[in-house]
């Protein structure tokens, strides 16, 4: 079979199992994975053509494993094309403690900024979801493990205040290892800050939907992520306050219950409202939003002067 034939074949079957009769040799597989043409599912080892994986919202067509996605990808999947208005893109992290471990924090920041093309670990803004205006924030785990420092806290607080002011429902996607240690106590205080802003949004009678994605831990779980009026999670997402390693230190290795801290476990414990596969998220979020409208005025928010004056930063 020529490579061209083989590609034609591939279009019929969206995915291909490594353990099955693979038409191409191991070496080539490795090379093409490295090229980014194919991706191997960490859950079932199936190789999927990268473009197909993208089309399936980065969910493995074989086993349903949800691959980690970036904040820009998430926004693209959810929002109506052209509706995204980023807010507070001019906020950038600083190094208030002059924190230095193996490397200075400022150096780490620069590395992650270059690698991700993000200033910090969250994107916030306004957009329409199936025609419904929302305020939305999405964390990006690539940026220092989605850790919450002053910029994440401030951007989420400002977004929430904006949602309160404009009578908008708020949707926050979390993906975080917890507080950003390099900002010391100031990172801890972002838990307070975000919770404060959410209290006002709640008081104003507005809806907040929290969506937990893999992984969400520590200070993010113990603040905004668990404060949703409604809390959804992606299948298999691991969510908790204390990380499994920390718990194992007290109870011993290998003593954690099967499936501990997965979305399914949280659902069984009554800690979340529902598990929604990524491929259905947009539809299901729109469904929930539509059941909470109208509240106060439902007019589409005009593009605010704030958003207009903000130039995208490089």
């Amino acid at each position: 079979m020529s490579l061209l034939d083989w590609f034609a074949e591939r279009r019929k079957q969206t995915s291909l199992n490594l353990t099955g009769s693979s038409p191409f040799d191991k070496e080539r597989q490795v090379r093409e994975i490295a090229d980014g043409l194919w991706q191997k599912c960490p859950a079932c080892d199936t190789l999927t053509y990268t473009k197909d994986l993208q089309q399936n919202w980065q969910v493995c067509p074989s086993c349903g494993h949800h691959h980690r996605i970036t904040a820009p990808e998430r926004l693209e999947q959810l929002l109506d094309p052209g509706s995204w208005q980023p807010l507070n893109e001019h906020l950038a992290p600083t190094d208030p403690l002059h924190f230095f471990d193996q490397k200075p924090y400022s150096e780490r920041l620069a590395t992650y900024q270059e690698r991700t093309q993000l200033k910090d670990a969250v994107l916030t803004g306004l957009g329409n979801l199936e025609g419904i205006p929302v305020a939305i924030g999405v964390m990006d785990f690539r940026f220092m493990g989605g850790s919450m420092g002053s910029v994440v806290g401030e951007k989420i607080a400002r977004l929430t205040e904006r949602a309160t002011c404009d009578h908008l429902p708020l949707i926050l996607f979390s993906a975080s290892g917890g507080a950003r240690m390099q900002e010391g106590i100031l990172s801890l205080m972002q838990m307070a800050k975000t919770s404060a802003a959410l209290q006002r949004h709640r008081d104003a009678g507005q809806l907040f939907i929290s969506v937990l994605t893999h992984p969400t831990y520590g200070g993010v779980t113990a603040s905004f992520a668990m404060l949703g009026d409604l809390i959804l999670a992606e299948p298999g997402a691991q969510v908790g306050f204390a990380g499994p390693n920390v718990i194992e230190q007290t109870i011993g290795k290998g003593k954690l219950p099967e499936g501990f801290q997965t979305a399914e476990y949280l659902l069984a414990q009554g800690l979340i409202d529902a598990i929604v596969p990524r491929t259905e998220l947009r539809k299901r979020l729109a469904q929930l939003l539509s059941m909470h409208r109208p509240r106060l005025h439902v007019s589409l928010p005009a593009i605010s002067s704030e958003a207009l004056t903000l130039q995208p930063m490089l």
Partner: protein
Amino acid sequence: MTKSNDRLLLEFEQPVAALEQRIQEIRALAEENDIDASEQIRQLEAKAEELRREIFSQLTPVERLQVARHPRRPTTLDYVQTICDDWFELHGDRHGQDDPAIVGGLAKLGEQPVMILGHQKGRDTKDNIHRNFGMPNPAGYRKALRLMEHAHRFGLPLLTFIDTPGAYPGVKAEAEGQGEAIATNLQTLFRLEIPIICTVIGEGGSGGALAIGIGNRILMFEHAVYSVISPEGCAAILWKDAKKAPQAAAALRITAQDLLQLEVIDEILPEPVGGAHRAPLEAAQTLKQALLRHLKELSALSGRQLREERYQKFRRMGAFLELSE
């Protein structure tokens, strides 16, 4: 006066301990031989006091951490017993549990009825096991939530005392929603229309501390610490070596002086020389005076103003750049 040998000395106190040991010996010798050594003893005692003052005035962050975790350091209930004129402990989360790692109750501070909440460490090993070393489970935070709401309903000022290594990391705690329990307290504390004064009396361990740590005033004892993560935990993650805790303690900026500078706390309460555990009654008096003073200041504000002030206070915390376009 307590004998120095049953006082659990910290390593950096050794020079003072040695001097005090010598004073004891001289005193014994003088008595034995019927000699008046009182002048010499007075001088040595002054020197020991001076030495202790000097040592405690320049503690490193990790040494302060040891003072903050000292097994004899006064706990919430110790302070309650010494500063309150009346006390009625309240129990339970009304959902099946009563967590001994958080205590709460109604008290009178002078004439003023107040609600008190605090982490509770044990006074000895047995008590510590009972108190889970001051590490609350969700039930503890939910008991705290219930008492906060009660204080709000009846217009009682809320005084909280922070002293925990952190919220308990356990399977049951996770199953019962540790994250949700903490988060709900954070949010609720911003709704209460009462004066809230929080005091870090010992160890302020991360989210587990913050869950009762949002107030109109945040006070902190001189040798208390407050951190986003334990220095040991931070060292294990960032240095891949828990023995680097002293470096992590310094880098994290966990002392009262650091927090004042970072504008997270409002006031440092001075401790007796050698730490609060050397003179608990003196420390309690300092605490009581500060609480009364702040309560008086806050009594001038309406419930709405108190709530607004608290919002603005925490809204300002953090450090970031606003790049110009």
